[in-house]
């Protein structure tokens, strides 16, 4: 016995030493200022990058940032840029995007990005500075009611009035932002709280909350009923959305597996592109207002719709009372309020997409050992007939670059690379969705719900920060890109080689198209007058500018852009009055599409349709 202890003694001593040191360190590091707590909490949440802009009410936090080098701060040019960068960062990694801005104008400038993240369910934590607590409500310099203003554009928000609450709130913010249906969370921290001393702690159970409890596991009975319906359906279709991507890479893998097992065709919303590979023969393309003919016709005529992580948005459904009239609808969503909001659902399953997909696969395997490709062959044949309509055809030209052609060439040139695409909002966004084949989830970043022009350039910066070696391209329009143009300078500063591929038609293209559709081609204020010389602009900001207006030289120009090791502005001059087709006009149903051969689109929409957006 004695020898045993003797043998152990040196080890015990070492252990004791380590224990004492760690205790001592904990004691030492526990007492800290609010500003230090914020940075400590970010580190504990494994945050590596934050996007921000300093100002009076966040100076203590910036001082703490200065004294460490674990968290890298990306200095933006405008707070809206910071929020979109965080969105791009979050969407391409699945991690929480973090924003740090000052009080007043810093916070109000962030509102657009917060709303964007709310509508597209992007996890984001935005820390805002606030005037010191005694001054709140006195109309102090750079004071605004941040929690009041952001209440309706965040998943949740906090005003931290006491230093004791700060550590709990910081960790809670990350939990709320990233769990359930993800979304933006604002933490408003007054300057006196940033200076105050307090004890930092990381809550032992950071993934529980007294009232917020997202429902992750779908009801097994409902999932089984869904699988039974899938085993009987004659005309089934998967309609998937951004929820599949938010649910993690495994969800996309499971979706692929379930499609393989069942043999059912798949369509997806704008937000869900990439969850299912565009090269697969079950892929129908995107659905909705600018979706393919086959996807929309299949949605209209199906007898079983399996909606996974999508929300029946008005861009998807078209005329509601004519939306897929003869189908049984299964809806898988993590947010109960999405169920039955616009469209009646026959079989709701509330839960995380990935977990529900896993269960569906398991149950399918239990009940059947083969795909139903044979049994639904007539349906697949009908779909092939719709495919033959070739709704994405366009007349190419050898004199002028067609925007669709430009995107196809870009896709070809980047095929072998790890390519991330972001977009602004408008025609180019729809063309990117239609003509760029997405094979992997988290590789397409776009503003879907809010439709924020100016999203793409900063989002590309955020994506490039997260993936320094990848090819990151913002497919842009000349109007949208000018809204957040200044962030190009951020890309230059941090040596982020983003490529801004501008489809320049000198019009706010989608506005012009709607004016042609609805307002007798009176192009009120939609012409991009006084455009900057994008090549000189890029050079002035320290990047490279390329211009191309000849289809024969396009491939070389794209190669030059991709080969350049630094940020590039590519001014791609395209045909001016190209329309984005096919299109379900407002007030119409899925089977009433305008196809590319429609000559006069000005007479398609009736009076009642004109009031809709």
């Amino acid at each position, binding site marked *: 016995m004695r020898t045993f202890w003797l043998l152990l003694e040196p080890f015990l001593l070492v252990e004791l030493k380590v224990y004492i040191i760690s205790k001592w360190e904990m004691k030492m590091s526990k007492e800290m200022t609010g500003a230090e707590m914020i940075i400590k909490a970010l580190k504990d949440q494994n945050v590596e990058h934050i996007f921000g802009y300093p100002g009076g009410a966040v100076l203590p936090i910036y001082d703490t940032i200065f004294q460490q080098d674990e968290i890298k701060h990306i200095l933006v040019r405008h707070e809206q840029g910071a929020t979109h960068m965080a969105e791009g960062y979050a969407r391409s990694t699945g991690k929480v995007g973090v924003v740090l801005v000052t009080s007043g104008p810093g916070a109000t400038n962030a509102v657009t990005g917060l709303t964007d993240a709310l509508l597209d369910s992007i996890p984001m934590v935005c820390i805002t500075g606030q005037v010191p607590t005694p001054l709140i409500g006195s109309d102090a310099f750079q004071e605004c009611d941040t929690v009041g203003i952001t209440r309706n554009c965040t998943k949740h928000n906090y005003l931290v009035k006491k230093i004791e609450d700060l550590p709990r709130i910081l960790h809670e913010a990350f939990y709320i932002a990233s769990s359930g249906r993800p979304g933006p969370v604002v933490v408003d921290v007054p300057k006196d709280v940033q200076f105050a001393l307090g004890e930092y702690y990381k809550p032992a159970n950071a993934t529980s909350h007294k009232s917020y409890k997202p429902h992750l596991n779908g009801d097994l009975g409902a999932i089984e009923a869904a699988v039974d319906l899938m085993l009987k359906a004659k005309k089934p279709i998967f309609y998937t959305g951004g929820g599949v991507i938010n649910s993690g890479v495994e969800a996309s893998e499971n979706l692929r597996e379930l499609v393989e097992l069942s043999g059912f065709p798949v369509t997806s919303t704008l937000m869900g592109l990439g969850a299912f590979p565009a090269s697969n023969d079950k892929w129908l393309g995107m659905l909705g207002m600018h979706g393919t003919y086959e996807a929309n016709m299949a949605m209209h005529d199906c007898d079983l719709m399996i909606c996974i992580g999508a929300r029946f948005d008005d861009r998807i459904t078209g005329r509601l009372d004519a939306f897929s009239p003869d189908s049984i609808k299964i809806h898988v969503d993590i947010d109960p*309020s999405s169920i039955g909001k616009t469209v009646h659902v026959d079989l709701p399953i509330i839960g995380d997409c990935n977990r529900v997909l896993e269960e569906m696969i398991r149950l399918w395997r239990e009940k059947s050992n083969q795909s139903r490709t044979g049994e639904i062959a007539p349906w697949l044949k009908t779909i092939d007939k719709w495919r033959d309509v070739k709704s994405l055809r366009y007349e190419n030209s050898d004199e002028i670059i067609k925007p669709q052609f430009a995107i196809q060439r870009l896709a070809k040139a980047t095929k072998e690379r790890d390519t991330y695409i972001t977009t602004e909002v408008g025609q180019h966004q729809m063309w990117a969705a239609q003509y760029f084949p997405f094979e992997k989830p988290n590789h397409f970043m776009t503003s879907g719900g809010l439709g924020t022009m100016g999203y793409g350039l900063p989002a590309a910066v955020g994506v490039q920060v997260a993936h320094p070696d990848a090819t990151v391209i913002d497919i842009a329009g000349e109007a949208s890109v000018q809204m957040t143009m200044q962030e190009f300078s951020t890309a230059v500063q941090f040596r982020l080689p983003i490529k801004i591929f501008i489809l320049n038609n000198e019009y706010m293209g989608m506005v012009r198209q709607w004016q042609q559709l609805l307002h007798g081609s009176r192009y009120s204020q939609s012409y991009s007058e006084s455009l900057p010389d994008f090549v000189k602009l890029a050079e002035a900001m320290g990047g490279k500018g390329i211009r191309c207006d000849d289809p024969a030289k396009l491939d070389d120009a794209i190669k030059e852009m991709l080969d350049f090791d630094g940020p590039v502005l590519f001014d791609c001059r395209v045909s001016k009055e190209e329309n984005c087709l096919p299109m379900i006009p407002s007030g119409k149903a899925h089977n*009433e599409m305008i196809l590319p051969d429609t000559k006069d689109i000005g007479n398609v929409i009736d009076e009642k349709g004109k009031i809709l957006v």
Partner: protein
Amino acid sequence: MIDNLQPSGSAYFITKPTAEPERHTLSVLVDNEPGILARIAGLFSARGFNIDSLTVSETEHEKGLSRITIVSVARPKVLKQIKLQLERVVAVHKVHDLTQEGKSLERELALVKVAGTGENRVETLRLAEAFRAQVVDASIESFVFEITGRPTKIEQFIALMVPLGLVEVVRTGMAAISRGSDKM
């Protein structure tokens, strides 16, 4: 294809409502944190829901919980959305639709000021007694009554006071609780 492009004669989103609006009482258990009332009220205005009555007060101090009672008039589908949207708010613990669950008690308190002299004054007092309204203030030419009961009873009392010299009314809004031993 072109045939399909003819106007269909039907507008979308403007479908005729199929069900009649109903009046429901919702009981919402929330964390008593700053801004929670603004958050709930903001949700109603942002999504175009109606609020007929709203009362809020802390009910369990040590747990920091408040109960909000909301009366809303909406079609059944919208009522379901209201409940789901309320449940989505991070600080909301539970939402109960008391009208749907049946068996609930609904009470309201009102202070009613009535001025008058002579025969009217006597009649006012007689009616107040019939309605079990308490006199909480009196002067030579006025009374202030405190009356509690179901909102319909209070409305009836107020209607009777109008010809007798009603001056003004304040109402607390409705408080509601389920019958029986069940806890929300």
